[in-house]
């Protein structure tokens, strides 16, 4: 998106609302929706990557040390990572912004 959604006139839209700028969902910060945030206990984490696989917004990302952390711009706090973690390493906690 070259500009904010609210600034588009109907004439500006592509036919069929086709999005022809691949990857522009990065500009849409779903992190604003968040109430809870995932908190990982790295002593339980085995670096299996299930949280990364299941995160619907690709917000859970690998760090350089091999562990995973959620990106605050995109994590909307859905809790799927905590639900899927087989080692109970992730808890959802209140996000004090």
């Amino acid at each position, binding site marked *: 998106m070259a500009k904010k959604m609210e600034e588009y006139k*109907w004439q500006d839209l592509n036919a*069929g609302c*086709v999005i022809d700028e691949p990857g522009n969902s990065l500009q849409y910060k779903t992190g604003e929706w968040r109430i809870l945030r995932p908190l990982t206990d790295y002593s339980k984490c085995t670096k299996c990557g299930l949280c990364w696989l299941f995160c619907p917004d690709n917000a859970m990302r690998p760090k350089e040390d091999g562990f995973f952390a959620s990106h605050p711009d995109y994590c909307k706090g859905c809790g799927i990572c905590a639900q899927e973690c087989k080692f109970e390493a992730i808890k959802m906690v209140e996000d004090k912004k």
Partner: protein
Amino acid sequence: MKRKGIEVSKAIAEAAKLARVEVVSAYPITPQTHIVEHLAELVANGELEAVYLNVESEHSALSACVGAAATGARTFTSTSAQGLELMHEILFITSSLRLPVVMVLVNRALSAPLSIWCDHSDVMAARDCGWIMLFCENGQEAVDSLIMAYRIAEDKRVLLPVIVNVDGFTLSHVIEPIEFPEQDEVDRFLPPYEALFKLDPERPVTFGAYGMPEIYTEAKYAQEMALVSSKKVIKEVMEEFGKRFGREYKVVETYNMENSKVAFVSCGSINENIKTAIDLLKKDGLDVGLISLRLFRPFPSEEFLESLKNVKRLIVVERSMPQGATNTPIFNEICALIFTRKLDLTVENYIAGLGGRDVLPQEFLELVVNPPEKDHGREYKVLGVRG
């Protein structure tokens, strides 16, 4: 131009071949069956270079057309009645994604009671799904309309799907003398489809993204403006078709309107019987006209109003039940136009030809001379209903 006697369904399949369709995706249903059977033969015999997809339902048939059209292929499907209603969800997806799929809808009554015979209840139940809709009075018009439909649908100013309505059995299963244009003439009229956007790994795009409240209204308005503006292109294409092939079509066609104070309004094959009634009345010195809606969506309001000329009484004949509405669909639109343009006209609403019941010229003649009373407190009259 070759002229030959052929069943109209087969002629429609031959017209799809002339249009060089690349993907055919359809599920057989009476009375559409002969169209897709013949297309399957043409593909199997190597006479038509296309992918023929055997699918498990009409929902899948149209979904596959959507996918194929999104890759930039010229797609064809065909169905009738219940098949169209099973496609219903995807009808809206096709038009809002602006994919130029072309469908021949062989009009058939909706169940129950189960009927394989013609009326327009199928298309009328799907009339507001954003497709361009054309009606045909005979087999030649069906062939010509199908070729024109691709040219209209694929125009970059349009990019919308088209339904070509062809009355079940009355048209689909009769043998008519049809003039087929030569392949090279069709090729010149209808160049290969070039999509504005297509699914291509080399240049990824997203079809069918989510629309938040901030953008949905603009998205739907853009779609509506494309549909409304398509009328200009439809008229251009009809005019060019006439110049190239010698058969010119108009979005609203008229018959004997010059001196007529009374006129019928209808669409489809029933119009040929109305014309016979008009000829009989003319012999008795009575001038009655016919306004034939070849284009139904987008509704050709201006062309309809221009066609009225000196008419004071309109007789609107439709082949579907209002299903609880005050009147039948075309009647309601005409009345809205007459009211908003403050015209001085009386308009009568008749329902006829449901589930394949014949309506003979004599019955139309009677409507003019002895208009029947409305019944059961309704705002319309169902012709010939017993009780």
